[in-house]
């Protein structure tokens, strides 16, 4: 089945009030951010999407695929599930090695040439992490950043899912700017739960959450997109500083002043 569109139909907030946003439609290639303070219901919203909510979750929202109720086979057969959800969990519980885990996942997602798929995933994931992931290591030994990088690569390559939901990847300890660049190469629907202005301002739309309810849906203006590019530049500077310190270098005031004086930031 070809996925063209996913819709979220509003339900009710935590206090029982009807959500101010009735419906959000996303088409292939769209980037959506979900923003709002901690506890405002962002994670619950992407969980609703990941579970194909049908008025059977606390929010009573509904999710439609191509304007119709999703087929039950999406829930029964992972190979047909068009959604990959990457949660905030940064630890694995699986008592198996990385290669066995990926091999099993590739098998149930019906990917051919599993060795090549596993190599691709590790290549993708290792571009986002500090220390590379080694195939023979146990899943439970991976660091938070490695786990998250592996899950993102797994969703994009094994899942090959047309709809990818990512919960606060900025906290994953991975190279976020690189991750965004790599993800944009794929024509998919991406939904980010995020506190990060780089992600929000480079998205096409954002939903603002409050009290468990969707308060507003905002289209990113061209002006905001321009600001987003500057914010990404600011981030490159921070990442540069972080990498210097991580690799044991010492900081110099002269060097730092030169960075701060760069006029393009204003």
């Amino acid at each position: 089945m070809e996925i063209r569109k996913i819709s979220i139909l509003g339900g009710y907030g935590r206090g029982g009030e009807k959500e101010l946003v009735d419906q959000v439609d996303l088409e292939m290639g769209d980037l959506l951010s979900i923003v709002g303070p901690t506890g405002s219901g962002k994670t619950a919203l992407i969980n609703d999407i990941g579970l194909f909510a049908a008025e059977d979750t606390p929010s009573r929202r509904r999710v439609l695929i191509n304007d119709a109720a999703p087929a039950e086979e999406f829930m029964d057969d992972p190979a047909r599930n068009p959604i990959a959800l990457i949660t905030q969990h940064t630890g694995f519980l699986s008592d198996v090695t990385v290669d066995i885990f990926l091999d099993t996942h590739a098998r149930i997602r019906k990917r051919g040439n599993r060795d090549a798929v596993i190599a691709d995933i590790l290549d993708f994931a290792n571009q986002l992490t500090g220390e590379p992931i080694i195939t023979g290591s146990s899943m439970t030994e991976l660091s938070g950043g490695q786990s998250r990088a592996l899950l993102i690569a797994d969703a994009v390559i094994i899942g090959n899912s047309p709809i990818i939901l990512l919960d606060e990847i900025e906290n994953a300890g991975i190279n976020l700017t690189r991750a965004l660049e790599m993800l944009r190469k794929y024509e998919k629907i991406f939904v980010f739960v995020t506190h990060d202005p780089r992600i929000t301002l480079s998205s096409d739309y954002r939903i603002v959450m409050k009290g468990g309810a969707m308060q507003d849906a905002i289209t990113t203006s061209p002006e905001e997109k321009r600001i987003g590019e500057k914010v990404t530049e600011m981030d490159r500077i921070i990442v540069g500083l972080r990498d210097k310190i991580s690799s044991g270098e010492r900081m110099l005031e002269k060097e730092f002043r030169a960075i701060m004086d760069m006029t393009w930031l204003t």
Partner: protein
Amino acid sequence: MKLIMCAGPPTSGKTTVLRQVARRLLKKGRRLAYLKIDVQFADEDELFRNEFSIPAKKIYSGDLCPDHASVLVLGDAVRWAEQEGADLIVETAGLCLRCAPYIAGSLGIVVLEATSGMNLPRKIGAMLTLADIAVVTKIDLVSQAEREVFRANIMDATRIEVLEADALRGIGIDRLVRRIERAEEVTVPLMLKGSPPVATCTICAGKKNIGWEHHFGVLRKLDSDLFYRGE
């Protein structure tokens, strides 16, 4: 009447799943009775009685294997529920992971938590393989990729329906309720679906001595096959 038998390891969420199920079935107008079988402590019967005002009982198996105890008492329990005009929900102790006394014609539900080891489905035998549905709980605690691999390990162990649920929040329960509504009625004579893999033996009956030479029944030595010792 329908007989719903729920098994699963301790803390996997059997009670939470059954409460969510009971709430929905009662709302749809079905009458329910609840029986909890445990070894030495259980308060789930009070929970069901207080929350739903339905007939609820518990039994303690003590020195007897709880699943053997359930084979002995379920005939009476089915008659009790029938007198109440109710379908019967039985929650097993969840301590013995090998045998689960599912009855032919009942709906056997095994509750497994997504956070348990990847090889659990291969380890637990009849509790899983003789069930009709596996409900995987605590799905909010693991990644989707792990959920999918865990599901595949269940399907590799046995071809049964697998439903995923976040029972605390009542997510995924509606599908289980629809499955229960489709379940057939149980008919007498009641028969076990499979023989429990551990026979009643001197260990089950409470003899504590270590070493095969102290016991009777089907035994084994460190380096031997199974053999029988006794009258």
